[in-house]
């Protein structure tokens, strides 16, 4: 079984400032890691994923995330945020074997203000 903890329920930040959204996971098996974004009244959109190889992965809209196996973390970062980045962000994991079902964290609301 897997679990995901997103340490901040809400992160307020000013436009053009850097941001980090934190994610820790727990699993008894090897996992793949994902970040999804949800804009108001919409479904989930895949931002980026870690499968293997380089621990720094780049995604859409200028986001990147770093996988840290020893700390079981997968934090999401952006060097300069825009108003349009205001949304809910979800970290998720899936087992590398078996069926492709996702276990999500509770989400972090990123609030970007001018």
């Amino acid at each position, binding site marked *: 079984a897997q679990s995901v903890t997103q340490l901040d329920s809400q992160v307020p930040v000013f436009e053009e400032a850097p941001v980090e959204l934190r994610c820790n996971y727990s699993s008894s098996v090897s996992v793949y890691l994902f970040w999804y974004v949800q804009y108001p009244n919409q479904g989930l959109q895949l931002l980026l994923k870690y499968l293997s190889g380089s621990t720094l992965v780049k995604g859409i809209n200028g986001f990147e995330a770093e996988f840290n196996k020893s700390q079981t973390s997968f934090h999401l970062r952006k060097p300069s945020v825009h108003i349009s980045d205001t949304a809910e962000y*979800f970290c998720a994991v899936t*087992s590398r074997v078996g069926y492709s079902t996702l276990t*999500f964290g509770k989400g972090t609301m990123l609030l970007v203000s001018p």
Partner: protein
Amino acid sequence: DAGVTQSPTHLIKTRGQQVTLRCSPKSGHDTVSWYQQALGQGPQFIFQYYEEEERQRGNFPDRFSGHQFPNYSSELNVNALLLGDSALYLCASSLVGSGQGAGAFFGQGTRLTVV
């Protein structure tokens, strides 16, 4: 490519009633998963369908049932609705041959309100 489409977008039902939600997967995808997202929470896995069979199920009661059709579209049925069933229901599609690392494509969801 239309992506994953869900219908209806919004629905209001009364306690005790039954509801059916529908999902058409992304073109080329053969696997459909359903998730429940309560307000302020992350999505929770309900079940997954592949080859018209339920192949995995999350921790949801038998009131939640589903079906997958030969064209890979899917339905989620909920019987004897409770107030706590009010949530956004998300459908996600994937291709079994692409492996777990491919992730899933999500629809816009159906907002169910039980009154």
